[in-house]
């Protein structure tokens, strides 16, 4: 049972991995814990698969915690009572939207996308952001896994300095945490939506980040983002901005969602979860459940749209 897990608290990687196993055990036939690779320090990269069966189904990809210090994102991934993983598992057969999605599509959810960084934030440096790979010729460790994707790799908005927090790495997909996802999505071949969850500037963004040109699907992506942030705000009044990454926040090369979009995943988004203007990404644990609860309807909008607009 997952009943003893305190969702209003932050947890270590061992606790989260144990919880993932328990969730799968509690929902046999619906939830599976898959390993898609391993991190630089050989930790397993686990993905929760939500599926009601059938081969070759279209799928939705979700990830949290690619920047390890943004604990609110991993926590949002495991919170119940509306969000996200538990909600998906427990609302199947009850909630019409969740049921409709899972009757036709699979959902893959990587909750601890940067496990080495996450473990390091618990043991040594709470504010660690990058991976933990050693950089040849430098005493500085780690690569920004959200600048390491093969989408405008090495361009503006990423750094070639290994000591920078936005170091793009020696080459695209040099980080096993990144290549595992890229390989998985490409091998799957039928991923229709991808949402990468970050913290903390209250934004919902879509491609592009590495270039100023509008995405070919800009209008549809923009309209869907507007709907999603409206539904998010309806929960607690949290106001999000939305738009392309480059217009909304800054030019950033080598990001997850640009890579996904360039590789055929039309509904590609990145969230920046809530910021009260007081804590940054160090949100007190009391805000985990509200954050997750308000994120859920927006996420559901994106997933439903992907279901109802096949391509």
């Amino acid at each position, binding site marked *: 049972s997952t009943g*003893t*897990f305190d969702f209003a608290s*932050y947890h270590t990687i061992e606790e989260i991995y144990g919880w993932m196993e328990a969730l799968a055990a509690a929902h046999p036939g619906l939830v599976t814990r898959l390993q898609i690779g391993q991190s630089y320090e050989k930790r397993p990269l686990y993905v929760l698969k939500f599926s009601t069966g059938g081969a070759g189904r279209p799928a939705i990809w979700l990830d949290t915690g690619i920047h390890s210090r943004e604990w609110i994102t991993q926590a949002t991934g495991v919170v119940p009572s509306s969000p996200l993983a538990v909600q998906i598992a427990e609302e199947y057969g009850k909630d019409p939207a969740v049921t409709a999605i899972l009757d036709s599509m699979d959902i893959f959810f990587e909750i601890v996308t940067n496990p080495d960084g996450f473990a390091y934030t618990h043991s040594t*440096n709470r*504010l660690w952001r990058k991976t933990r790979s050693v950089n040849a010729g430098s005493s500085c460790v780690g690569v920004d896994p959200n600048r390491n994707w093969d989408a405008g790799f090495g361009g503006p908005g990423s750094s070639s300095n290994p000591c920078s927090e936005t170091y793009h790495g020696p080459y695209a997909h040099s980080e096993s945490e990144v290549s595992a996802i890229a390989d998985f999505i490409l091998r799957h071949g039928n991923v229709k939506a991808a949402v990468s969850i970050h913290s903390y500037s209250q934004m919902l963004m879509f491609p592009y980040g590495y270039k100023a040109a509008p995405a070919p699907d800009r209008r549809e992506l923009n309209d869907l983002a507007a709907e999603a942030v409206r539904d998010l705000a309806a929960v607690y009044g949290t106001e999000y901005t939305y738009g392309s990454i480059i217009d909304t926040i800054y030019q950033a090369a080598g990001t997850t969602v640009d890579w996904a979009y360039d590789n055929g995943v039309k509904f590609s988004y990145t969230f920046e979860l809530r910021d009260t203007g007081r804590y940054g990404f160090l949100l007190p644990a009391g805000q985990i459940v509200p954050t997750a609860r308000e994120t859920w309807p927006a996420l559901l909008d994106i997933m439903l749209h992907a279901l109802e607009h096949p391509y």
Partner: protein
Amino acid sequence: EELFVGDQVLRAVAGDEEQLALLRDLGEQAELQVDFWRGPTKPNLPVDLRVPFRSLQAVKSFLEANGVAYSVMIEDVQELLDEEKKTMALSRRLER
């Protein structure tokens, strides 16, 4: 374990491109070890920077000297982290 006693997170707002460039320069000064939580992107958008205790005076003086408006978002990062750790420990005891 690395501690962040006395480190502050400042929220600065650059009024124009010139002030934005100054904030970027701040990040380039390796000895200050400024950690941008929200980077300098556009004028009038907040820029959040964690400043180690030992660099606080220099960074604040720099901002003031250049007329960059700022406020203190987090007074002491370590206090927040200690509170976080306490909450986690309490939660673990409750689970048992």
